[in-house]
């Protein structure tokens, strides 16, 4: 998907490829923080610290998020393959 065709990649392309990989991971991180905070943390802020229950919820939410992320990635590839690709764009 991110191939450079037949020729050797230029310096700029090599740097951009690494940068892009890190960006994908960073976005996944941001997304997980947003969703799991929303799912687990009480928003009244009567306390400034995480309760035991909130902390455990965050840990489990993180694990479920990774599992769901992989699952959705697989589903997407399967369905794209079936529909002949494109996701309608």
């Amino acid at each position, binding site marked *: 998907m991110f191939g450079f065709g037949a020729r050797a990649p230029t310096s700029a392309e090599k740097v951009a490829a690494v940068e892009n990989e890190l960006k994908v991971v960073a976005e996944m991180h941001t997304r997980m923080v947003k969703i799991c905070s929303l799912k687990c943390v009480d928003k009244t802020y009567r306390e400034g610290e995480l309760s035991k229950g909130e902390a455990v*919820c965050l840990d489990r939410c993180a694990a479920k998020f990774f599992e769901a992320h992989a699952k959705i990635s697989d589903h997407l590839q399967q369905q794209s393959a079936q529909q002949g690709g494109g996701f309608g764009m």
Partner: protein
Amino acid sequence: NSLTVSEQRELEQRLQKRQVKEFMSLFGNLVDNCFTACVDDFTSKALSGREGGCIQRCVAKSMTTQTRLSERFAELNQAMTAEMQNKRF
């Protein structure tokens, strides 16, 4: 407004980058929506069968939605462009 061959090649490269970016954001939204809609039980750190099934149906339904709306968008956008051409000339 017409582009030379080299300009066209430059444009295509940019559009390809944009397409990768858009696919990434589409995938990200899918993860957001389907995780938010389907995962609500944090008594375990593994997805339950119910949650996994919900995610699978969510991905399938979201892709159908995306495809259907993209078709409508293309039609409506074409009609609008045609109308604007008529007004202009």
